[in-house]
């Protein structure tokens, strides 16, 4: 074989992998939790440390768990989207405030608006470990029976909300 052809063949193989790599959603990290029941938790409520919020509160209807922190740029980016979703009122959003400072987090919600039905304050990140959280922001969709239906990594957008979350809720409702 002609040795001058080798480089272009090597390049073609590389491009093949890149093309596949692009089609794989880079934000998709397979979660072993999808289809399983959500890990139970019970944490102090942000701003009201004497009260708790936990997985039991999220049963009985479709809910969303959004992992956020004030130190996370992506969270700030998605915050207006979460506010809009909350205004629509179809699905309650629970927050999991992750490895954060309670005062900063409370201030953040006061300034930017609070889309959360309730926010659990996970100061040491223990619950986040149970949920397999690897960065913020992450958002989970949970069915009324507590099954995790979907996990989205990276900031929420209205497109993702419609195509991935609302579509799954509609499908689950239609199927049951």
């Amino acid at each position, binding site marked *: 074989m002609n040795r001058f052809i080798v*480089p272009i063949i090597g*390049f073609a193989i590389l*491009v093949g*992998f*890149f093309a596949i*790599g692009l089609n794989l959603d*880079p934000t998709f990290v397979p979660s072993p939790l999808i289809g399983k029941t959500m890990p139970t938790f019970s944490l102090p409520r942000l701003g009201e440390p004497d009260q708790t919020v936990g997985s039991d509160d999220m049963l009985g209807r479709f809910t969303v768990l959004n992992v956020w922190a*004030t130190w996370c740029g992506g969270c700030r980016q998605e915050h207006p989207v979460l506010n809009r979703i909350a205004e629509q009122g179809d699905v309650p959003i629970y927050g999991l405030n992750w490895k954060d400072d309670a005062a900063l987090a409370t201030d953040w919600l006061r300034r930017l608006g609070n889309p959360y039905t309730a926010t659990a304050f996970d100061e040491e990140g223990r619950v986040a470990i149970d949920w397999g959280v690897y960065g913020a922001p992450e958002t989970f969709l949970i069915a009324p029976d507590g099954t995790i239906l979907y996990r989205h990594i990276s900031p929420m957008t209205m497109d993702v909300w419609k195509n991935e979350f609302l579509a799954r809720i509609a499908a689950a409702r239609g199927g049951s």
Partner: protein
Amino acid sequence: MIPELGQICVTLALCLAVVQTIFPLVGAHRHRGPWMAVARPAAAGHFVFLAIGYGLLTWSFITNDFSVLAVASTSNSALPLMYRIAAVWGGHEGSLLLWVLLLAIWTLAVSVSSRRLPEELAVRIIGVMGFISAGLLLYILSVSNPFMRLLPAPPDGNDLNPLLQDPAMALHPPMLYTGYVGFAVAFAYAIAAMLAGKVDRQWARWARPWTTAAWLFLTLGIALGSWWAYYELGWGGWWFWDPVENASFMPWLIGTALIHSLAVTEKRDLFKGSTLLLAIGAFSLSLLGTFLVRSGVLVSVHAFASDPSRGIFILGLLVVNIGGALALYAWRAPGLDRNAGFRMVSRETFLLVNNVLLSIAAGLILLGTVFPLVLDALEMGKISVGKPYFDAVFVIPMLPLVFATGIGMHVAWKNSDPGQLLRKLRWPAIIAVVSGVLLTALAWGTGPVLTYVGVCAGIWVILSSLRDPVMRLFGKGPRMTASTVGMQLAHAGVGLFVIGVTVTSTYSIETDQSIVPGETKQVAGYTVTLKELQQIQGPNYTALRGDVEITRDGQPVARLHPEKRIYRVQTMPMTEAGIDAGLSRDLFVALGDDLGNNAWSVRIQYKPMIRFIWFGCIVMALGGLIAIGDRRYRAVARQADAPAVSGTAARPA
């Protein structure tokens, strides 16, 4: 209004880039003088409109026009002016516009200084560069428009990533991009030569200074990035093998091989196939670097919001540019390459070894960088390849290369007498081994064998590089050209670099201590006292500032002020390390986390010889600069103009 004007300018630049591509390339193919004459004016216009467009974008940043999305997302009204200007390339869109602007500047430089070149070669080079620019401008205007409006405008911007708010980091991207883009010139030279079906010594002589210039910028750009990482990230590390760094390092390795391969092509009319391939490779890896960093294929999701439409577009650009070049190579290179004899002990052999080892290193780094992606594509899971792999695959080919460099510089072309070589290099070798072992053992104590090997290798290269210039100072030995002196200086820089890396990685002392203000710690014979901590206010951040006193045997050594900054807009904590820099060692103090009870975790590090790493890079770049200054790149080119033109005209159709 201003951003729209900018967009019009960039659109006009795209139109001119298309003109700059079609007329010269077709004109050169059909030998149409008037068509070819379009090349230079088009390149000039292309530059002018891009410069205006870029200037207008910069204006939007300076005037805090937050109705422009790029401004709103990477700037802020509290940001100092210098960083508002740097914020232009702080985001994806602006940085690509800078990329294209730099390409236009290189094109302009080629077109201005190419009067001595055969007309067909010159306009083909300009045409190829126009082609590259047109593709990227199309990309910018279709999916990555920096002039995009954001209406209604937010009251203030999202601020520049605090990591980038630093003088070195502000300069790092333009420097790096100048290097990346500079390899486009060598790439265009290679394509033009293959289109003409002619690669000769004269061609290599013309291509050499351009390649060296690009390499010089890339060297400085990488060094600047490494220096920045060292003092800004707060870990005291200087290289992390992350995909972004690898993306800049691979073109550097291939570009280095290209410089050496071009030398063989110029002197001996050999290695033409590998020179062409390396020229394509250096720029391809630069483009790939842009792709890897910008598309989000490899980068973690939290670094850049990834956008598949951009990724697909860039992949298309890669296929057209690199795939096209490699197809041309597969078609044309077989007729251009030639084999000629050289003996085992000859400059050619050493340069061949050099090229092979550098290419292997680059290939293995590429493998490590894309391997996680490949596994993912094959659905074998997500993994990451880390530092141990890269350290190993880099050191294994590089260590023999460093030894060979010391010999290779003194080997004659074609055939060399081993006995004479031995006599010449006997003393530098002996001195290197003895002084390397003694110096290491006396200065820093015993270490692993590889440390001695590394220090000896570094001293060996330096002595071998300096042998001829020093002899010349005493009036002995032949006269030396600027390019020889530059070459030797650059190799001495490699030696300094090797010593720095070896000593720093073996003898650094890195400690994390819990410390209360007023408390004293002992590190590497130094007494470190945290005097006090106080709150200070910066223009767009608040900071906790430590006052650290360092003494040794009761004598004051340094007073450092490490800071822990919180930037207000992005509420991101940043570490500003306090560093006492010295030629033989750095003392590095960085504030860590609040441990409660008034205690702080403080990172205290002793880093011997770390300055040699960057100093070595600067010396390498300086060597490159001196080599570019060689008169023969200009003088000889002028004489050879006439025969070369007839040569290209007589090329096979």
